[in-house]
């Protein structure tokens, strides 16, 4: 076959194929969509969180809490003339999947804001994609410092103006814990352990810096694997060091085992952790071994805030299958921050234009709200202005607030 003829035929065949496929797919499209007969406009709030896999309990809690905020806003008609819809995407806690669903939300012009992500590592990928389309992003859970302040701690620079978070960073929680350890507990020799995840490692790094500044000493820095159950080797190693405190960066499933095995080996030092271990399961599992253990958590104790119990009651009443879990309240707040901005910018407008998306970001920057986790507002980096933290201690098998203070 001659070369020219071959190409001509190939092109013809390809064009025929494309045309056929185009006709077919358009017809398919025509019968499946186009049912929007509603008179009100629709705006979407996206959620990017792990909805499947081992972190799905947290992700489902985030999704449901945002859903609750949206339902309440629609019932009260907060954004006049607009109906808010939820567009939940599953990032499976992986960075590349997160990037993929982010570009899905980005290419949907009706999406005005996104609540997410759970993991800082995923947020790093999602940020630039949403920034391209001026979609505001409010994270309920990211603690990584560089998300708002860039990689260079000496020269802070906000990488993306569309990114905000209602969670506090490691840079606040870690040092706050260190100050409590050296000033209130008089702890000189501290053992740090973390689980090699972004959250735990960051927390321990910031804790260590402040502790050394306060004149304390880290006598051993150990790590464990998330998912491990037997920590006796690490504990045997640190036992002769007679530390005053064990500071753990990580989450409660490992922390509760760590503390029970430590006490069983005869280690007297209490264990201290971040909000990752602030869960009643910790006490239920570790029982007496948890007595005297400490943790820090963001905001004033929740039972002092009336709005928090309203949220808990509304969540229960809505009948979701999963718990709102650790980040439910923050997600609810994050969604309300976006809804509040939408109410300011979109009310009475006919369409969501790219320029209005910029206005939404500006409106979020100027947020002043009373949320269920405390006062909501953002500084010039997009970090929450709330720097109130509370230290809790296990006293008679219950988390009791022992100190609430503002971090300076």
């Amino acid at each position, binding site marked *: *076959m001659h070369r020219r003829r*071959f*190409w001509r*035929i*190939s*092109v*013809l*065949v*390809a064009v*025929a*194929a*494309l*045309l*056929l*496929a*185009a006709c*077919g*797919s*358009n017809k*398919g*499209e025509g*019968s*499946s*969509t186009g*049912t929007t007969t509603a008179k009100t406009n629709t705006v979407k709030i996206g959620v990017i969180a792990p*909805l*499947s*896999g081992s972190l*799905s309990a947290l992700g*489902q809690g985030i999704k449901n809490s945002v859903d609750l905020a949206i339902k309440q806003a629609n019932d009260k008609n907060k954004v006049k003339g607009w109906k808010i819809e939820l567009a939940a995407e*599953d990032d499976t*806690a*992986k*960075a*590349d999947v997160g*990037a*993929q669903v982010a*570009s*899905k939300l*980005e*290419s949907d012009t009706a999406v005005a804001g996104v609540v997410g992500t759970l993991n*800082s*590592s995923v947020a*790093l*990928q999602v940020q*630039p994609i949403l920034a391209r389309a001026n979609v505001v992003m409010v994270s309920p859970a990211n603690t*990584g410092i*560089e998300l708002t302040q860039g*990689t260079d701690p000496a020269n802070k620079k906000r*990488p993306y103006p569309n990114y905000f978070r209602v969670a506090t960073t490691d840079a606040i929680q870690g040092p706050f814990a260190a100050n409590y350890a050296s000033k209130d507990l008089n702890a000189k020799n501290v053992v740090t352990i973390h689980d*090699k*995840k*972004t959250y735990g*490692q960051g927390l321990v790094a910031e804790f260590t810096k402040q502790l050394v500044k306060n004149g304390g000493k880290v006598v051993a820095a150990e790590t464990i694997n998330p998912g491990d159950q037997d920590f006796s080797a690490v504990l045997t190693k640190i036992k002769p060091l007679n530390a005053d405190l064990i500071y753990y960066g990580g989450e409660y499933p490992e922390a509760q085992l760590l503390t029970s095995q430590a006490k069983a080996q005869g280690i007297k030092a209490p264990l201290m952790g971040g909000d990752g271990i602030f869960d009643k399961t910790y006490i239920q599992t570790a029982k007496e071994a948890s007595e005297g253990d400490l943790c820090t958590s963001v905001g004033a104790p929740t039972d002092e805030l009336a709005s928090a119990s309203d949220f808990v009651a509304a969540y229960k009443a809505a009948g979701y299958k999963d718990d709102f879990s650790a980040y439910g309240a923050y997600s609810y707040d994050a969604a309300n921050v976006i809804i509040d901005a939408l109410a300011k910018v979109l009310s009475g407008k006919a369409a969501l234009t790219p320029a209005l998306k910029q206005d939404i970001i500006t409106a979020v920057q100027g947020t002043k709200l009373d949320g269920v986790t405390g006062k909501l507002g953002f500084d010039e980096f997009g970090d929450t202005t709330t720097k109130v933290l509370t230290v809790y201690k296990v006293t008679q098998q219950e988390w009791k607030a022992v100190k609430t203070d503002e971090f300076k």
Partner: protein
Amino acid sequence: MKRALRPLGLAGAVAAVVGCLTPWATFFFGYPGKVTLSGFPGGARLYPLILAVAAGVLLLVDVHGRRRSGLMAALGGLAIAGYNAVAIAKDGGGLGAVAFGAWLTLAGTALLAAAHSFGKEESAIAHSRFPNVKAPAPVELLIIAGSLAALLYVVVLSLKIEESTRFVSFVAFLGFAASALQRVDAFEWLQSVFDRHRQVTLGAAAIAAIAFPFTQAGSSYWLRVFASIGVFAAAAIGLNIVVGLAGLLDLGYIAFFGVGAYTGALLGSAARTTYDTHWPFLLVVLIGATVAAVFGVVIGAPTLRLRGDYLAIVTLGFGEIFRISAFNLDWLTRGPNGIAGVPDLGLGQFNFGETHQVFGVTLPGFANYYFVELVLLAAVILMFTRLNDSRIGRAWVAIREDETAAAAMGINTVRMKLLAFAMGAFIAGAAGTVNAHVAASAAPDSFTFLESILLLAAVVLGGMGTVPGALLGSAALFVLPEKLRAFQDKRLLLFGLALILMMRFRPEGIVPSRRRQRELHDEDGADAMGTVAAP
């Protein structure tokens, strides 16, 4: 008695068609596809309609294998109608929600199935076999265009369908339609048509793939999905060399992909990295692939002496060692944070991340990655097919079949196995380097054991040792979880069950290797394709 079957079946076909044109739900409650309206087959109703018509036609036309084929089509219609009826009843709050049309379709397809299963024995006349039919060249070219169109249409539609019930119906339709076609040897026939016009088929497929982003279907999101599938498929083809050709079971293959990804991220001037380097992309790809290949040799040299499952467990161990190292070597890999902010590719003044105007069409940024993927895939496929057809490929297959015999025939088995390992690692490294730019990051969470399993599953589900198999397998594994959103929490469960069922009922994969088949068809293909197939 048997005489009555054909009219009965035809009546069933008519009933099913009418049923598909009438409402399936008694009232409107948001069930997708406008199932309360009549006069057109909206939503999932289209699929039983097509299957019923096909089953009806098969009652009348005498083709080899028509009975089993018709039965498959009728059962497909029955299953889809049944599934939708159950879903409608569940969503609409009771059987009252299911309208007459659905019942009619169920009854009609059931009749059809009965007619086929008790029907006349199929004709054994040779000429009524599909593969023996030869059409004039223009008609065959049209058929090629048609099947390419069907493929594109399926791809586009499977991305477009949003509702889960409809998507499940669609996948069921594809499955039943494919097995019905298989039973009248339609695929064998299509294959022979393709073989007669092999160059045109390949050329047209390439052109269609290149033109795809210019069609309406090419939105930013889909192109991103395609680009990711491309990376995944390239890696799967690399694994296919190791597992499919040489028969070496590698359970830690994702590590090589990871080595490439980290190399790409480290050398590709990422924003959040440990070293600031700015090397040209093409060089980085080569370096990434080479580094991965070196790793392959280093790992392979001491372990390839081991056979079978021992090798599997050792590669699994190396995969874990890689992941743990990526976690712990903070000075190089930034530990659990990973290296993020890998910039868009650039060639001269051309930035791959931005939108571009080409021939008056605005292409989103990801179109460029899509093209990069096409080039990568083309290179990998070329490499795979050339290797497969070469002396080396035959040596690998010989080792796979019987290592002792291969060694006795004078094949240096350790060297050949090492080569397979290195080639596989090389391809994975190249794919990983590109992926660092597509995903804009390299993080240890992306290189877990489950990822190795996913790649292996793509190879095995698609069909070991074949290129279309690896492509199809990766596409299916990528798109299916994306679409089954209604089952979001049960996705992994479905994946596990799918693996079990697939191995139970079709262990050779969707597209089984045609090594022997092609040998038989070599004379047919040779005249039309000139030099391509010649080694």
